[in-house]
Each structure stands twice: as C-alpha cells, then as structure tokens.
C-alpha cells in the first residue's frame, strides 16, 4: 500500500516561487490501477516524480509498504528505486543498446550475474510480446514496441509499484489501446500496483480502478472510476467525463429523436457497473410481449463494469409495458420514463 501524506513541491526561481504540488494526501491500495488526470500544468508530472524522488519533495512524505521514501539516504533510495518501476512518455531507451540489452540494464544495476540476466530478459520479452525483436535497436522499433521495451525494463527487478508518466501520450489511439491492455494484463498477472498520470480520460476509463483529478497542484476530486464518471462534481471533472461520454444526458433528453417517437414509451436506462447489459435487452424482449427499439446509447466499459445510458422505445399493450418496466426497475439498472405517446 502506498500512503502519501501532505506531499508538496515548490519550485523556487529567482523572483518567484511556484507551488507545483500542493499538500496532496492519497492512499493507493496494493494491486490497484490508480489514475491521476489533469490538464498540462496541473502538477501531475511533478507529483509522480516525487514518488520516486526524481524530484525532491519540499514537504510531506511518501510511504511505500511502510517504508518512508522521503526519509531514505541516497544509497538506500537507490536500492528502493529498484523496487519502483517507471515508464515514460518518450520511452527513454538507450539508443546504443539492443532490446535485450536495454531490458538487461536495470538487472546490471541490481548486480545480477550474466546468466541470471539472460534468463530474466527472456521471460520479460515474452511477457511484453517482443519475441523476435530481441536484437533490434530502439531506432528500428515502432512507438508501441519501444514502450513495450520500457515496460519490460521497468518490470525487470520485480517492482512493488509501476509509475507511468504519460506512458501512452506519444502513441496513436490503436497502439495506446494495446499498451493499456498490456498494463491491465500485467496488473492482473503480477498483482502489480500501477500509478499512472494522463490527460486522457479514455485511459482512465479503460484501465483504472480509482481516479484522482488534479488541478493547480491539488487533488480536487477522487473516487472509484464509476463514481467519478456517474457523479462528477467539479467543473474540471465534468469536462474530462465529457471527453469520453459526450454531452451530459439532460441535453440529450431534449433531442429531437425523442420528440419524433410517436408510439409507446421512451425509457432511459442508466447503467452503472452493470456488466450484463447485452443480455438484458433480449431478456426483457423474451419475457414480455413488447417491441424494443434502441434509439440512442452511450455505454463505456470500465474496469468495474459498464457505465452509460441507453434510450429505448417500448411498444405494446399498456399492461405489458408497465410489467416490463417494473421488471427492469427491479434490476440494478436505473429506469426513467422520458416520453409517453
């Protein structure tokens, strides 16, 4: 478990001081993927670098498994850093080393023998899916492959935690997804705690369990991804949710498509953490003698299940329609009648 207490960073320039990180308190559980989202300049990059002291904190403490990182001597810090993997936006690989040699570098630092290094590198290459590219130089790799090398390198010494500094921001959407899947895979396989920072809500939605929103060096909102998605409080959070979900529902409700419906009822189904939405519609259709017509929907998969809303038109006799609605209401899905014929 990682416990961050009143962590602050002030940058002192000749004529002013900038509070990049302002008294952050956080608790990150073992084995979770924790996302920190914010616009550039929010201080998230400084924050993640405070965790392994690439940036020295001005105040506060970072506890990883009860070890106070901020209190360590330089020598002990070096040893602790071997247990904190880190990947970067621009990969930061060594140009003069092959894939194998890049992955072996942290093992050289940790003082493993040549045979041990070679064995471990083989495992890692397989884990990140780089088999066949072992002897390529970084210049010969695509962005996604370079990040895979970065991930393998970060995992080499079996870290307790993996820090991801905008790890997918330099990649195209498709490659981003494949790297995100790899991170989830690693998280599940190794039970590794992952802390990532990003400015893309898509990344949070896809892989994070919990999220914190940063603005002006502070955490303005945090909670489970589903909670934050379904009930964003701060304006900045709402903006981020819009990135993924589109405009809020109340604006959609006024849309013309609802007014054009001239028979039956229009229902809005709100899914929060419901993972069986696919079968749900057909279940209703089978159970009750109603016609169901999907009008519009926006459902995203998160690590904790689906989130989003679906507008459907239900037609049939009044009695059966009310029975169907009552059934839907009895599940975990929120049902709201938005229009009657």
């Amino acid at each position, binding site marked *: 478990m990682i416990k961050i207490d009143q962590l602050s960073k002030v940058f002192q320039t000749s004529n002013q001081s900038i509070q990049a990180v302002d008294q952050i308190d956080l608790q990150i559980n073992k084995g979770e993927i924790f996302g920190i989202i914010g616009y550039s300049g929010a201080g998230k990059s400084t924050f993640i670098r405070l965790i392994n002291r*690439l940036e020295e904190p001005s105040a506060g403490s970072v506890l990883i498994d009860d070890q106070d990182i901020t209190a360590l001597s330089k020598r002990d810090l*070096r040893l602790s*850093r071997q247990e904190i993997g880190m990947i970067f936006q621009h990969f930061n690989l060594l140009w003069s080393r092959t894939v194998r040699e890049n992955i072996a570098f942290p093992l050289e*630092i940790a003082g493993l023998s040549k045979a041990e290094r070679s064995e471990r590198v083989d495992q890692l290459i397989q884990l990140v899916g780089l088999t066949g590219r072992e002897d390529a130089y970084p210049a010969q790799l695509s962005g996604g492959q370079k990040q895979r090398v970065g991930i393998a390198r970060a995992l080499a010494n079996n870290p307790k935690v993996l820090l991801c500094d905008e790890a997918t921001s330099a990649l195209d959407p498709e490659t981003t997804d494949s790297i995100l899947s790899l991170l989830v895979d690693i998280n599940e396989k190794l039970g590794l705690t992952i802390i990532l920072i990003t400015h893309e809500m898509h990344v949070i939605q896809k892989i994070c369990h919990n999220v914190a929103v940063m603005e002006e060096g502070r955490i303005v909102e945090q909670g489970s991804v589903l909670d934050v998605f379904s009930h964003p409080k701060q304006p900045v959070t709402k903006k981020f949710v819009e990135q993924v979900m589109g405009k809020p529902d109340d604006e959609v409700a006024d849309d013309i498509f609802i007014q054009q419906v001239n028979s039956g009822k229009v229902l809005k189904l709100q899914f929060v953490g419901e993972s069986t939405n696919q079968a749900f519609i057909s279940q209703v259709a089978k159970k009750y003698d109603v016609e169901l017509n999907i009008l519009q929907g926006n459902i995203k998969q998160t690590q904790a299940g689906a989130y989003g809303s679906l507008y459907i038109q239900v037609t049939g006799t009044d009695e059966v329609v009310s029975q169907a609605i009552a059934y839907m209401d009895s599940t975990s899905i929120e049902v709201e009648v938005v229009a009657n014929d």
Partner: protein
Amino acid sequence: MTDLFPNVDWPDLVEATGETFYMTIVALIGALILGLFLGLLLYLTSPSGLWKNKYVHFIIATFVNVFRAIPFAILIFLLFPVTNFLFGTFRGTTPAIPALIVGTAPFYGRLVEIALREIDKGVVEAAQAMGAKTSTIIFKVLLKESIPALVSGLTVTSIALVGYTAIAGMIGAGGLGDYAYFYGFTRRNFDIVLVCTVLIVIIVFIFQFIGDWITKRLDKR
C-alpha cells in the same frame, strides 16, 4: 620520381611521415583522456548537471577557454620551460607531445561536453529511476550513448593535431612539418614542400576516413 623531385631523400621522408603519425597518435590518446575528463567535468558540474557546482565549473571553463584562446605557435613557446624541465630539451618528437596535448585537449573537451549535452535528459533520468549509481550513469549511459559523437569529435581533433605537429615541426619537433621547413623551405627545395604537403593531406584523409567509418559503425540511431 627522382627527376620530378630531385631533392627529396626518400628514407628521410618515410622517417618524417612516421614521426608525424607518432606525434599525432600519442598526442591524440593524451587529448582523448584529458579531453574526456575536462568535458565530463564541464557537463557534470554545469547548472543542470549531476554534480552541479558553480565554482568547479567556473575554474574548468576558464582553463578550457584560456588554453583554447592561445594560438598553438605561441603555446609551444609558453611551454618551453615545462618541456625543458621534463625532457631536458625541446627538440624531437616526444618533447613536442605535452604541448600538442595541452593545445588540443581543451578543444576536445568542449566537443565532449557538446556530445554529452546531446544525450536526452530523459535517458539519464530513466537510469536514475532504476537506481543507478552516478558512476554507472557516467560510463554506461553518458559515455556509451555519446560514443558516435565522441568519435567524430576525436576525428576533428586528430586533423587539428596533424596541423599542430607541422607547426611544432618548425621548431624542430620532427615530422613532415620539420622536414618541409628545414629541408624544403629554408633551402629553397620547393619539391620537398610539395611532397610533404601531399603526404599531410593524405594523412588527414586517412584519419577522416577511419573516423567516419567508425562513427557510422557505432551509430545506432
């Protein structure tokens, strides 16, 4: 050949060529070691360096700038007492070497510093994040990653050195410069000057060719 260059004594010429190679290569090794040392210190003590230190940086930078500012022809005279103390004479190839090193190491030091600056800071940071010691970062990241630039800098330095050996030759250091000056210029045997010029140009081309070839082989970017 004898008709074209009547005054050239071929065994002497071969010996002079050998002396030029000897001085250049030995001084190059010296400039490499001293230059790497100076360049690394300049880089590491700079305001954004790992050993950030205003005073050490100022001292090294001043030393480098002063010695780069002194023209080589004058530097040799300036170092006469040192050379005399070390070797008991200032004539000959070996006594010329300290001056050649002092004349080129600061120049190479600046090239080393530039080469190190070219390395992405992120790579150094990644190594720090892995828990690397500073010595590991110096040898396995900084020097290793900049090898292509260090070699091409050494190529440039070697060519400057060939030129400096010719200047040193004029005060009796030996080599092709010495031969061209004393046997060619002072005795008005211009065929000797011409042959020496051609040989020096060939030597420069050889250094350039080898340097470019090594750089190309090492550059994985």
